[in-house]
């Protein structure tokens, strides 16, 4: 193996910047390790062979000089260990989407959490006095039912208590005393209201917290960037949502779907009773309502299909159910699959399902994860996936909302835009989407939620808008079709100024 590059390229080598950090990656086909593998396009095969020489420096792609240094190769047409700056990484992913660029990773042993400490503390707290506070609407003073209330007496160390408001808006909190100094109080309503954050307050039984009602005509980050599209936008594109199911809702038209949870009714693809995550995601893509009674998604004209992978009343999804849903969605001729899920260890079966979908002309768009600047989660990190980070915009939610804590650097060229503090980031990020305080549909009405889970469907909707009416959709359903969809999507992206590890190519903004 050759010596490594210096840690920067000069401006002469890469004219877009003065000094650019280089990283090591493994460059390989979408499937397997050699160019002849299924799913590798002809351009990708030619590219791998053209870079067969260990030590090759720089390549030309569609007339563009792309700085890259080959350090090692497993065979002339096989995977390469390369060093390149992030701009080269973006160029290769854009121009040769059937190749994967996987960052070289180093693994350290995991340590087990100290569960016993929490258990002991829980036993002690069970005997502590209870404080009952009330959650009411700001205007009418009506009780807010089903709101999650979290109060921290020591926010930095996660010390506090939480509860859910009952039919009278009452919540019981065990904070160690009858009158507690609370560093931070958060309220997350089930629907109809903005979240709330209050700092440094004293609470006791009888304390009232008031929530601002949600105005469905409010310009949140989704509507700021995508306005209110015509109902026909996205027509001709079939989008599958792999999630907690999609509830019947006045703003949504569901074409069909499946439930792939082992032991459950395959036709029960409605909401699984666990907060309406999938219904919210679906609304961001395809809601067809209009303020003041409804909301509009990014591509309301799509054919929307629901694939429920989370079991009834459960907050977890089996990798088998997810992989089975992907296979089913491919058979159902979905063009795009939205996967606002992930985490855990890389799984070869799920990876194979996503790669197979791509080889069969179906593209998986996957949330990067909410680890807070952690590396991109599995399966979004797969080269065969489109990985989406989340950003927000100041002024698109009230200053009293819990989302004020999601404001973090880096900021964009427009300083009101920021990368959400919870968003995972890294070289695998392809695109970014609005994911802070997004108003959308839930089984009981509408609510605002944040997460890369919300940024992902914004990008899926934008992809549908970009592809609608395009000749790409008429192509044979194979890997070349998927590659063409990726190219068409990336071509609509506008960098917001966060930098490639945070936004990839930027925000897709189809005309």
């Amino acid at each position, binding site marked *: 193996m050759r010596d490594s590059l210096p840690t920067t390229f000069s401006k002469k080598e890469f004219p877009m910047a003065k000094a650019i950090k280089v990283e090591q990656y493994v460059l390989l086909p979408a499937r397997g390790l050699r160019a002849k593998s299924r799913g590798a396009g002809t351009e990708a095969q030619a590219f791998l062979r053209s870079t067969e020489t260990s030590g090759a420096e720089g390549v030309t792609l569609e007339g563009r000089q792309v700085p890259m240094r080959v350090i090692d190769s497993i065979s002339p047409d096989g995977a390469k260990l390369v060093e390149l700056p992030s701009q080269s990484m973006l160029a290769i992913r854009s121009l040769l989407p059937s190749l994967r660029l996987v960052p070289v990773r180093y693994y350290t042993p995991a340590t087990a959490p100290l569960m016993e400490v929490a258990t002991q503390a829980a036993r002690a707290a069970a005997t*502590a006095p209870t404080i009952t506070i009330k959650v009411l609407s700001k205007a009418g003073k009506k009780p807010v039912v089903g709101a999650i209330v979290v109060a921290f007496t020591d926010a930095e160390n996660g010390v506090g208590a939480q509860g859910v408001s009952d039919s009278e808006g009452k919540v019981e909190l065990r904070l160690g005393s009858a009158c507690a100094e609370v560093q931070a109080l958060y309220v997350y309503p089930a629907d109809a209201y903005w979240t709330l954050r209050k700092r440094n307050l004293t609470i006791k039984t009888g304390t009232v917290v008031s929530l601002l009602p949600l105005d469905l005509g409010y310009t949140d980050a989704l509507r700021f960037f995508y306005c209110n599209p015509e109902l026909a936008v996205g027509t001709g594109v079939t989008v599958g949502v792999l999630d907690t199911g999609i509830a019947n809702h006045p703003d949504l038209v569901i074409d069909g779907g499946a439930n792939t949870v082992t032991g459950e009714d395959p036709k029960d693809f409605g909401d699984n009773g666990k907060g309406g995550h999938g219904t919210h995601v679906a609304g961001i893509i395809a809601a067809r309502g209009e303020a003041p009674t409804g909301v509009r998604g990014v591509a309301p004209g799509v054919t929307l299909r629901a694939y429920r992978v989370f079991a009834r009343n459960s907050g977890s999804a089996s990798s088998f159910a997810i992989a089975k849903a992907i296979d089913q969605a491919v058979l159902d001729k979905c063009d795009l699959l939205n996967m606002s899920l992930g985490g855990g260890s890389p799984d070869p079966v799920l990876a194979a399902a996503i790669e197979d979908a791509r080889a069969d002309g179906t593209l998986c768009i996957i949330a990067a994860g909410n680890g807070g600047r952690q590396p991109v989660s599995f399966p979004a990190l797969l080269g065969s996936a489109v990985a989406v980070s989340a950003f927000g915009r100041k002024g698109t939610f009230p200053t009293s909302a819990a989302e004020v804590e999601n404001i973090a650097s880096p900021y964009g060229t427009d300083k009101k835009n920021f990368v959400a503090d919870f968003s995972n980031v890294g070289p695998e990020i392809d695109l970014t989407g609005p994911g802070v305080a997004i108003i959308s549909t839930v089984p009981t009405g509408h609510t605002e939620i944040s997460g890369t*889970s919300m940024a992902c469907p914004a990008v899926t909707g934008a992809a549908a808008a970009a592809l609608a009416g395009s000749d790409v959709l008429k192509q044979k359903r194979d890997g070349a079709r998927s590659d063409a969809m990726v190219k068409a999507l990336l071509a609509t992206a506008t960098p917001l100024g966060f930098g490639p590890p945070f936004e990839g190519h930027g925000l897709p903004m189809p005309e």
Partner: protein
Amino acid sequence: MARSRFILRYRGQGSAPDADVARVAGLTEAAVVESAPRMLLVESDRAPLEALVDTLEEWVMAPEQAFPLPDVRRRAERPPDPDRH
């Protein structure tokens, strides 16, 4: 030792070959929980299943894994110690 659940996925073209599926189903230490055109969900000890899969072409195997519902809401990790008040 308790048996675990594993997923077997066929990576070749089309559906999984019937002969391969029959061999997995015939493994005495294993029980097929669910089957799909390209996958099997199998409850088994790892070693015998892994040994069989090694003899099958174009199959991958992984333990069944659970993915949590994503959520960015704050959560209290532990309650206050009442002795401090």
